[in-house]
């Protein structure tokens, strides 16, 4: 369904600061796959997500989604098929607009925006129904400005807005990293619920190994722009955190001792 073909991305090429963010990465995702990506800082996880979303363009290689070549398309064109939730809870919503106005904007992801009044009774009911699945009472606050919500509530709303229009690919970029533990729990369980409900093909980046093992049917471990370890289905089900740590050590040797602390939860 989603194929990445020999993707390369280098930052500051031909300068002393040259950094290879992604090198020669090829992967294929099937419909309904849920991939979790772990890796230390600078491993290329976020770069990979940004390449998929179109915020960055690859130096070489191409990205296809169901025969459609995504590579030359800018971010806003790809967004038709791709839903995103950012790490920063403030990034996914417009603070000075109400909850229902934000929902209206997310509806525009798949439909062309018209010159007609956006809000109808029917849509409002639909929004209420979707919001009530979050079970945090947002359905009664449709006219509240989003800026007045807490970080956790905003992230829950972002997650809903990214999923309820059923994108073909859902990208989650450490979307719980900026929240406190109890809110992380909430967002994670909502993620599981919403992804299952809409059976979305999902790629989730995380820093926490337990999360990566807990979620999804595939796991990629990234380092220096490459996927250095993969696990799928049954193999992944049996994985434990020590397994992952030793796998990392085996591949990278002892020289990456520092990264081990980063990788650990």
């Amino acid at each position, binding site marked *: 369904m989603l194929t990445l073909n020999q993707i390369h991305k280098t930052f500051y090429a031909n300068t002393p600061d040259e950094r290879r963010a992604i090198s020669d990465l090829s992967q294929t995702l099937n419909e309904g796959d849920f991939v979790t990506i772990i890796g230390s800082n600078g491993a290329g996880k976020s770069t990979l997500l940004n390449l998929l979303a179109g915020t960055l363009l690859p130096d070489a290689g191409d990205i296809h989604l169901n025969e459609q070549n995504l590579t030359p398309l800018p971010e806003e064109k790809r*967004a038709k098929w791709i839903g995103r939730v*950012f790490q920063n809870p403030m990034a996914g919503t417009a603070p000075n607009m109400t909850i229902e106005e934000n929902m209206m904007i997310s509806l525009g992801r798949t439909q062309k925006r018209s010159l007609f009044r*956006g809000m109808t009774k029917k849509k409002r009911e639909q929004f209420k129904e979707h919001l009530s699945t979050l079970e945090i009472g947002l359905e009664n606050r449709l006219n509240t400005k989003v800026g007045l919500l807490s970080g956790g509530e905003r992230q829950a709303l972002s997650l809903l807005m990214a999923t309820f229009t059923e994108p073909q690919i859902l990208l989650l970029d450490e979307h719980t990293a900026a929240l406190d533990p109890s809110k992380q729990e909430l967002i994670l369980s909502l993620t599981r619920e919403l992804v299952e409900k809409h059976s979305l093909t999902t790629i989730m980046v995380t820093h926490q190994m337990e999360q990566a093992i807990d979620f999804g049917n595939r796991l990629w471990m990234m380092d220096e722009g490459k996927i250095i370890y993969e696990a799928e289905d049954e193999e992944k089900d049996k994985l434990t955190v020590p397994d992952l740590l030793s796998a990392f050590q085996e591949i990278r040797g002892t020289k990456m001792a520092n990264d081990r602390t980063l990788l650990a939860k």
Partner: protein
Amino acid sequence: MITSLYGALETGLIYAIMALGVYISFRILDFPDLTVDGSFVTGGGVAAISIIGGVDPIVATLLGFVAGFLVGCITGLLHTKGNINPLLAGIIMMIGLYSVNLRIMGQANLSLLNETTLFSQLKGIFDSLSLDAAFFAPYEWLGLSAYAPRSFYAIVMMFLVVLIVKKSLDIFLQTETGLALRATGDNQTMVRSFSANTNVYIILGIGLANALVALSGALVVQYNGFADVNLGVGMIVVGLASVIIGEVLFGKKTIVRTTLAVICGAIVYRAIYAMALRVDFLEASDMKLITALIVVAALVIPNMLQKSSEKRQFKKSQKALGRVKQQKGEVQIANVKSNS
């Protein structure tokens, strides 16, 4: 005194349209657009030269509106495609438009005294139907005829125009396109991730903002009976003053409320202006300074009020806390003493 306040109401309503334009760029798009100083005259110049050329005043006014839209689109293009900082893009346009406006007008000053303008047309209608008498009636009935303005046509007309502009703006900002425009000013990352091209919305929004500014310019020129190439100097500050005064005095809870607030802000600004002009030692040339001071006051005072109320709150809680601490301290000292 009363007459000058009626004048303030008339001009306030005309400049309110300009203030609505400034509201779109400054507040909705968060784009400090200085093109306004130029596009105001562009609108006025295009309308004036068209009227002199024999074009129907309504068409001439609309031509001014369109000219403003095009000018604004260029500013938007400079910023989005040319990657020029918003302030700088506006300044560049403002400077460039000065020459363009002179070209449009052909000379620095155009008189419309003997031309048919929107206002003279309406005055004709009012006179032929003797509508003024109908408006005077309630004043006479209340025994206030001494306080009535000389004629009502300008107020009535501007009231209608402003009402139409406000209503259509309110409706537009609630449409799907309008929502995306507002979100563009609020959070560009988010809007792009929901497949909207923010560049298009910025260009469209700045275009619309300057179209309103130019419409206001076209009306001012017809109201004053002349067009001047320097008419737009400081216009951006006047617009900003109106927006801020309006928001502070009348609130900004919803879009409908805010557009109304901006209009009222423009009228209040004109009223302050009219009052200031009546102070003996102030001259008309001091008005720019007064405008600047009004903006500073409108920006600083609300902040100061909030800070001081926060401080009061803080002091109160500190006092309460101090009492508790003192008690605790005494207990601790007692403990130490008993231990030793």
